[in-house]
């Protein structure tokens, strides 16, 4: 054992040494090194840290019967092979978050984001996922909210519920905004994405009416349909009479997304939501594998410097220093509180043996983190000038291409109008300037990787393939988020007036769905009309809310460990919790109090109000200014609310822990009683 630990240390030191040399010499680094270092770090974390946590901290017991075995009903509680649970769990946790966050954080250079993704995952995200998965498995698959209520008390439980609802709203708004930025004035992208809706409906009908439950056949049919949609979109783009039909402004597309979200939340799931999810899962897994293979084959050079001047807080994508904002921008991929909702839902009901939580909890998160590393590579292999031209909003760099290239070249990242025009035309687009949100630049990065692996001539198709992949992915998260938000809202409203809590009563369904869609639709609309792109405000808010959820999950875990008398080992969850509390509170503090209008929300509102009063704004900007001012103040209050919820839960956890240490009564553990497993071969699993 000692030898192995020594070997591991040696490997880490070696890796850092090589990296250090490369940095010292200002050599451009090859993506392959980052990929290799990442894989080594995940393997070391999995082999040593995860095994130690499973054995010593969580006391995983392979002889204990899991809920899947005890409550096996052949439906949701089913003992399932761990490779299959791994697949289900990974497909559930992997969303668009790890693709967008690293792309935005690349404005600081590749190093801060990459280090946070690796360290955050190994010591934070993976640990959180595994711990919550085990705790929920020991509690018959109870949800995070229920565990917070049972183990900490009603205050913690209620805070967790409100926090979850808020994150659903912010998440849906920001994902909607990313999709709008992908589709605006792009007939190819718009027609392809629109065509995926009838494709999903056909698959849904196939699965319900014609061949019920034949998922593989239906998915194959769906894949053929969406590839046809991709090629059809390209054909439409070349027909002058047809392409105008799909050329929409951002506001029109936002309206479309809002109507779509409402339909997905109210229509039967088998018609739109479920079949779209099958397509998105296949597309997602296929593309992730394809991307990994392509990066290994092409092993591109990273063109972004390790650190840019924007670490001082003057970044064009979003304002704020590298600390704390890189940790807020990259949530998914490093640590994502949202995963705790998945790990305390469907997955624990499938686990055959407790020993499987290391692979399923820790392993799936390591793989998601690896996806985030690939997104970081795809963003940083672009010329930095091109990267900033795509991702910086018109309000920051200037509204015309000439103004934008002038500003960006002035930062020391040379780029020309001709270069951008050639790039846009090779990708089959009119323009790539100011396509904020991260998805278009990721698509350009992916298209150049795929293009140099599988043939340059198909660049436009690869670009739109990547766009479609991201859009299908984003829309299926938006659907699911709206629907779950609707159920949560109905649950809450049911306490006020019982009929509103009935999930199948149509007036209640329509009311709760409309409320949910109106909530995120509002933030989406404001983001769309914001000349700075909107993502610069919404994404940090999403990061703060996701970290807040992670802090709730880690608080529940820490509370349970300390209540169980495992104070010394509680550091495993307490240290990431403390880090998240520091980072989130600092970021929230700066968003609220900073006098710099690029960071502080009140400062931005006051700055805009001053300009409006003095008549310094153009007519168009003056028209939307009152709404933006109101929204910036609202966002500031929302940030305060999120931070308050965070501290409520942490203090509630601390209260329970102090009572426990003083020997006062605390809520009883809700762990299910031990029963020995009867499944064969359990003793063989360590």
């Amino acid at each position: 054992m000692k030898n192995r630990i020594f070997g591991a240390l040696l490997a880490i030191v070696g890796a850092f040494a090589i990296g250090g040399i490369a940095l010292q010499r200002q050599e451009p680094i090859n993506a392959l090194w980052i990929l290799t270092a990442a894989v080594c770090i995940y393997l070391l974390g999995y082999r040593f840290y995860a095994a130690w946590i499973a054995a010593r901290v969580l006391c995983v017991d392979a002889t204990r019967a899991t809920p899947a075995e005890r409550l096996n009903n052949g439906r949701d509680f089913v003992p399932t092979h761990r490779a299959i649970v791994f697949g289900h769990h990974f497909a559930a946790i992997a969303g668009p978050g790890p693709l967008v966050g690293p792309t935005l954080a690349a404005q600081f250079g590749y190093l801060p984001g990459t280090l946070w993704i690796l360290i955050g995952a190994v010591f934070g995200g993976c640990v959180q996922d595994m711990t919550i998965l085990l705790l929920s498995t020991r509690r018959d698959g109870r949800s995070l909210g229920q565990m917070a209520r049972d183990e900490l008390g009603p205050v913690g439980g209620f805070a967790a519920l409100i926090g979850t609802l808020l994150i659903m709203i912010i998440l849906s708004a920001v994902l909607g905004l990313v999709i709008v930025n992908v589709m605006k004035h792009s007939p190819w992208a718009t027609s392809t994405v629109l065509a995926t809706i009838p494709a999903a409906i056909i698959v849904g009908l196939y699965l319900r009416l014609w061949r019920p439950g034949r998922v593989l056949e239906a998915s194959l049919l769906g894949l053929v349909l969406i590839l046809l949609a991709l090629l059809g979109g390209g054909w439409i783009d070349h027909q002058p009479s047809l392409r105008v039909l799909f050329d929409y402004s951002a506001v029109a597309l936002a309206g479309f997304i809002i109507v779509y979200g409402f339909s997905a939340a109210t229509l039967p799931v088998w018609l739109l939501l479920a079949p779209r999810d099958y397509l998105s899962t296949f597309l997602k897994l296929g593309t992730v594998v394809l991307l990994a293979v392509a990066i290994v084959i092409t092993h591109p050079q990273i063109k972004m410097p390790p650190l840019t001047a924007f670490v001082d807080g003057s970044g064009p994508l979003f304002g704020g220093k590298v600390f704390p904002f890189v940790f807020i921008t990259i949530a998914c991929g490093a640590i994502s509180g949202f995963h705790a909702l998945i790990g305390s839902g469907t997955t624990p009901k499938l686990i055959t043996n407790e020993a499987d939580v290391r692979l399923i909890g820790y392993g799936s998160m390591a793989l998601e983190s690896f996806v985030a590393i690939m997104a970081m590579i795809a963003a940083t292999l672009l010329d930095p000038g091109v990267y900033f031209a795509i991702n910086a909003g018109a309000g920051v760099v200037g509204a015309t291409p000439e103004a934008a290239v002038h500003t960006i070249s002035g930062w020391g990242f040379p780029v020309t109008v001709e270069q951008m025009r050639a790039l846009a035309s090779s990708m089959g687009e009119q323009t790539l300037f100011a396509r904020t949100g991260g998805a278009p630049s990721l698509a350009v990065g992916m298209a150049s990787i795929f293009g140099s692996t599988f043939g340059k001539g198909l660049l436009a198709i690869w670009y739109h393939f990547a766009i479609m992949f991201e859009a299908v992915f984003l829309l299926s998260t938006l659907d699911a988020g709206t629907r779950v938000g609707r159920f949560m809202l109905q649950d809450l409203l049911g306490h006020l007036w019982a009929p509103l809590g009935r999930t199948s009563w149509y007036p209640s369904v329509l009311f709760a769905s409309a409320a949910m869609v109106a909530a995120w639709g509002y933030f989406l609309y404001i983001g769309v009309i914001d000349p700075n792109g909107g993502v610069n405000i919404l994404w940090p808010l999403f990061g703060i809310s996701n970290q807040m959820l992670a802090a709730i999950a880690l608080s529940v875990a820490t509370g349970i460990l300390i209540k169980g008398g495992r104070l010394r080992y509680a550091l495993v969850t307490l240290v990431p919790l403390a880090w998240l509390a520091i980072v989130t509170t600092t970021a929230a503090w700066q968003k609220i109090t900073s006098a710099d209008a690029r960071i502080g929300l009140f400062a931005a509102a006051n700055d805009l109000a001053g300009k409006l009063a003095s008549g310094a704004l153009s007519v168009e900007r003056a028209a939307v200014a009152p709404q933006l001012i109101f929204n910036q103040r609202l966002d500031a209050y929302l940030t305060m609310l999120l931070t308050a919820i965070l501290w409520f839960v942490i203090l509630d956890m601390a209260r329970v822990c102090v009572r426990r240490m003083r020997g006062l009564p605390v809520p009883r553990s809700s762990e299910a009683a031990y029963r020995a497993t009867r499944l064969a071969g359990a003793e063989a699993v360590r």
Partner: protein
Amino acid sequence: MSVVRRLGTGARALWRLLRALSGDDAYERYRAHQHERHPLETPLSRRAFYEQSQRRKWHGVSRCC
């Protein structure tokens, strides 16, 4: 011959894995479970089972950011 047979076995294992991963075999697994544990109950039809499992799946958080 043995190579062909081994390839066949591998392909069948891969197919089973793919079916299990995608949920294609969910109904068969349910029928087997019912047959073993509740042989006297009338099992759900394929369509009813599919609808019920979709409703259950999409009632809680099953997709992430």
